[in-house]
Each structure stands twice: as C-alpha cells, then as structure tokens.
C-alpha cells in the first residue's frame, strides 16, 4: 500500500528477513513511534504524579513554563502530568477491548469457518447484521445507560462491538484453510477437531491475528476517545479523551488555552499513526499479493 509509487514486479522470492523489511517499509517507523509511546506510558505508571495533578498544583490556566512544560489547566493541574497518566490509561482501554475483541472474534470466526453449517449461519448473520450498525451509535446508548466508572469498564464496553470485524476476517481465512491439503491429510489421519483447529489452522492465522489485533486496538481507542469527548468516559480515571472533554467543556479553544488540548491531541496522533504504520506493514506480510499496490 505504501510501498513504491507504481506496482512493481514482485521482488525475487527472498527468504531473508532483509527482504521482508524491504517489503514493509512502514514497520520500523511504526515500531519506533510505538516504543516512544510505551516509554511515556511506563514513565506515567512509575513516576508518582499525585502532587502535580492535585487541584491548584500550580497557577490556573498558565501557559507552558519551565516549571510546567505543558502549562496548567483550569484547576491548576499540570497538563504534562495529566498526559503522562492519561496515555497508559487510553492504551489500556485499547488493549483490553482489542484483546477481547480479537479473542472472541477468533473463537467465533474459527467455529463458523471450520464447522460451517448452522453454527456458521448463526454467526455470519449476527456479524453481518452487526456490521451494518455504526459501533459508536450503540456504544453511546450503552455508555449513557450504564455509567462507566473505571478504565477497565470502558474497555469492556468498547469490546462489545470490537469482535465483529475480526470474526469476519478469521471466518473467511478458516474457510479457505479448511480445504487445504494439509488439513485434509490431518483429518484423514484421524486428528480431532481440537488438534486440527489448534495445531494446523491457528498457526497459519497468526499474521492475520496480529494485523487484526493492531486494527482492533486502534479502533477501540478511537471509539473510547469518541465516547469520552461526549462525556461518557470513565468518571474516575484520567485518559487522553477525558483531558480533551474537560478542555472542550471549559471552552479552552475559544479562550485560547491551546496547551490544554493540543498535547493530548499530539499524543493521540502519534499513537494512531504508529498503529496505522504497523498495520500496513502487517497487512503486507499477511497478504503478499497486496504488496506494492
């Protein structure tokens, strides 16, 4: 997708890791950006910031200064400290929802794709119907009904819609793998369903699972930030979305307090871009025919 400008003839079949990197030029920048975000998250978890985010920890609505590099907000809390605490929480929501979504989706996709028949019909109808409804609309209704208190609860709520897309992708892959010779051989040699699905099919799905996981984490974070901006976020924990929500609610933009809302946005741009670059690379790895197109 991102490689080259015109479709090139397929590179000569190389087996070394060098060739793989040549086909996925977005992999290393993606990993580098992600490492930066993870470093910031770890700092946020390790360093004790409770003094800095206390109300009146500094002057109110102060622009960036030496003492407060990213300024302070309406209650005098340090925006840098809020950012350090919010980043890991937002990542946690993405990981919980993305992990659950991919696990449940894989389970359902494998069941539907491998078993076929009635199970397939039920799961496929459920997924097809579910995918016609924009997930954020349903999540708004759910979050407005059951008020979300913690980051973990937020992850669970977002996970409710995160399984459908992985289920569809894994189902179609499982269906093609089912017909492949090595699966047929295993079946003929008397292997049980558990062995075939777990040992023959699943290992072949790893690239798709990796790409699906990155995609699911990214869209789960997008959903959670969307909910948080609407005021439906966790009422207890600080996240990147909740910093934005309080900034918008207090008209930070109209009052020219740019440092309050700009830093969470920059952080999220880095996160989303990193995951996008990573998913492009994984996609190229999972679907070699798409390389260079």
């Amino acid at each position, binding site marked *: 997708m991102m490689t080259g400008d015109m479709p090139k003839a397929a590179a000569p079949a190389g087996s070394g890791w060098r060739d793989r990197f040549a086909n996925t030029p977005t992999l290393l920048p993606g990993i580098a950006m992600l490492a930066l975000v993870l470093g910031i998250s770890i700092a946020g978890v390790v360093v004790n910031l409770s003094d800095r985010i206390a109300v009146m920890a500094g002057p109110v609505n102060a622009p960036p200064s030496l003492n407060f590099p990213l300024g302070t907000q309406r209650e005098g809390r340090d925006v840098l400290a809020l950012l350090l605490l919010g980043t890991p929480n937002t990542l946690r929501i993405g990981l919980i929802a993305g992990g659950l979504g991919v696990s449940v989706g894989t389970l359902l996709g494998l069941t539907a794709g491998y078993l076929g028949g009635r199970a397939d019909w039920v799961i496929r109808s459920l997924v097809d119907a579910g995918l016609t409804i924009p997930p954020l609309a349903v999540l708004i209704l759910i979050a407005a009904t059951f008020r979300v208190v913690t980051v973990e609860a937020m992850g669970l709520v977002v996970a409710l819609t995160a399984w459908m897309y992985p289920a569809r992708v894994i189902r179609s892959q499982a269906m093609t793998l089912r017909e492949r010779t090595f699966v047929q051989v295993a079946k003929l040699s008397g292997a049980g369903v558990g062995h075939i699905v777990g040992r023959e099919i699943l290992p072949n799905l790893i690239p798709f699972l990796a790409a699906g996981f990155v995609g699911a984490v990214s869209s789960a974070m997008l959903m959670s930030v969307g909910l948080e901006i609407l005021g439906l976020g966790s009422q207890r924990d600080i996240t990147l979305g909740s910093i934005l929500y309080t900034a918008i609610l207090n008209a930070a933009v109209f009052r020219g307090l*740019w440092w309050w809302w700009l830093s969470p946005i920059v952080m999220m741009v880095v996160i989303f871009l990193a995951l996008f670059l990573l998913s492009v690379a994984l996609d190229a790895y999972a679907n070699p025919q798409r390389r260079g197109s």
Partner: protein
Amino acid sequence: MSRSYLVQRLGSFAATIVIAATLNFLIPRLAPQDPIAALLNRMDSKRGLVDGAEQLVAQYRETLGLNDPLPVQYLKYLENLFLHGDFGYSIAYFPNHAGDLILRAIPWTVGLLAVATLIAFVGGNLLGAIAAWPRTSNVMRRLIYASMPLSVVPYYFLALILLQVFAINLKVLPLGGVFTVGTSRGFDVQSILDLVSHLVLPVLSIALALTGFWALSMRGSMATVLGQPHLTYARAKGLRDRRVFVRYGMRNAMLPQWTALALEVGSIITGGLIAEIVFSYPGVGMVLFTALRTADYFVIQGVVMFVILGVATATLAIDLLYPLLDPRIRLQ
C-alpha cells in the same frame, strides 16, 4: 439489477432498522436502574412548573405500558416508534418532543456532511488518480504522504487545530455557531456571507481528513487499473492522455471507491457529530451533547436511531445506484 437482489437488499435495510429499534428498547431495560423510569420521575417532578405535566406523564406511562409484560411493552414501543414516529419527550426542553429537537437539527448535520463528503470524495479521488499516473511529478506524489496523518485521526482533532489557527491566531474566521450574535438572519447577501464564513471551518475539518483517506485508496485502485492490458491497448491506439486517464483509468478505478463510500458512511456520520461539538454547530451532534449532559434519555435514543437510520439509508442508496455505475453488475 435483479429483483431478488432488490428484495434482499430492502430486507436487510428493514432488518437493520428493527435491530436498531430493538437495541433502543432492550438496553435501558437491562440496566439495574431503568433510565426511563428515572426520566419519568424527573418529568413528574416538573408538574408544578409546566402545565399539564402530570397528565402527560400518566399518559406516557400508559402508552409505554410500563406495567405490562416485556413482550407487550416491546410491541407498544415499536408501534409508537414506527406508526406514530414518537421518540418520547425531551426532559431538558419539556414539553418538546425528542423527535422535534432532532428534526430541527437534521438539515444542519446533513448539509454539513453532504458538502464536506462531496468535496472530499471528488478532490480525494482526483488527487489519488493523479498520484498514480506515471507522468506525475514526484512532488505531487509525496503530497499524498503528507495527508496520511490526517486520514488516521478523528475529524475533531483537525477541527481544534483549524479553530486555533484561523479563529484565534489569524482571526479571519468566526469561532463557532452559525450566525454572528446580534445580526439579522435573512436572505440578504450579508447574512449569507456570515453563514458561509461560519461554515468554512466545520466543512474544512471534515473534508481535509476525508480527502487523504480517499486519495490513498484511489491511488492503489488506479495503480491496479493502469497496469491492465486494456489501458496499454488504449494508449497503443493513440488515444489522448486525458481520455485514457478519465474514461479508461478513473472510471474503472472509481468502482471500489463507491463501495468504500458505503462502508465509510457510518464513521463519517459519527465522526461528524463529534466535530459539531467542537464548533458549537447546531446539528444533531450538539443535540446529543446537550442531551448527554442533562441525561435526556429519549433524545439520546432518538439521536442513536437517527444515526443508524441515516447510515442504513445512505448505504442503501449507494448500493442501489451502484449497478448504474458498473454495467457488469446490471447484466448479472
């Protein structure tokens, strides 16, 4: 287009609507504290403030059938929704109907999203096609990479940044809303210019983000089409570049873009609603934002229904128009 396809497509449209209504019915009833019961209690508390509130609430309990068994409540809910188009009352703007609040906001939202999507779809496809064309300069091609960060982040990010630059720093465009406070609203040149100046930033923030998205996928699609034999043949015949580019290249490369548009409608609408909040734009998104802060449950339900209905209708329209664009489908 075969009749069975049409029937099947209309069937799945109807199914989506029924699922949406069912979710709207079921979710509040699964909660440990039914938000609708809470809402009616709050309505009841307004009895002294609003004339006839008591009768309205009593009548409402009756129509919702809150004392009936669940299946009866469900049927009554569907009847209210589909036969009477009744979403219930707004508590914040009691005794206004939730449906009326949303209806008043819909033209604003539809107008904003339609203009922004149109600009982005036309501009993005053209940019993407040009980037894939072999005789395009490298500078032009690199431009697409610059649009990449915009296409992976939500619209409201760009909305905030554009507001800061153009309304705060440069002070060339207004901050939010759709009219300057204190001016007359009529059909004169000045009012229309005022309105347009308020619309520039909301439209731009959605259109810019979407342009990158369309350009990226169009470039891939165009590159595939350009590699096909009939294009080589067209060139060998001596057709002029422009004709090859538009009639042979873009026309074919556009087809997957229409399908992508149908898939993207959901995120355009939900993303647009949030962008409205940043601009205090009087659309459905702002109605939702206010409703969420006042726990105005029937309005929230109504907005969710509007979003699902809007996405389903737009997708249906694109699917039904698609055979007109791709003659191969019509023949099947």
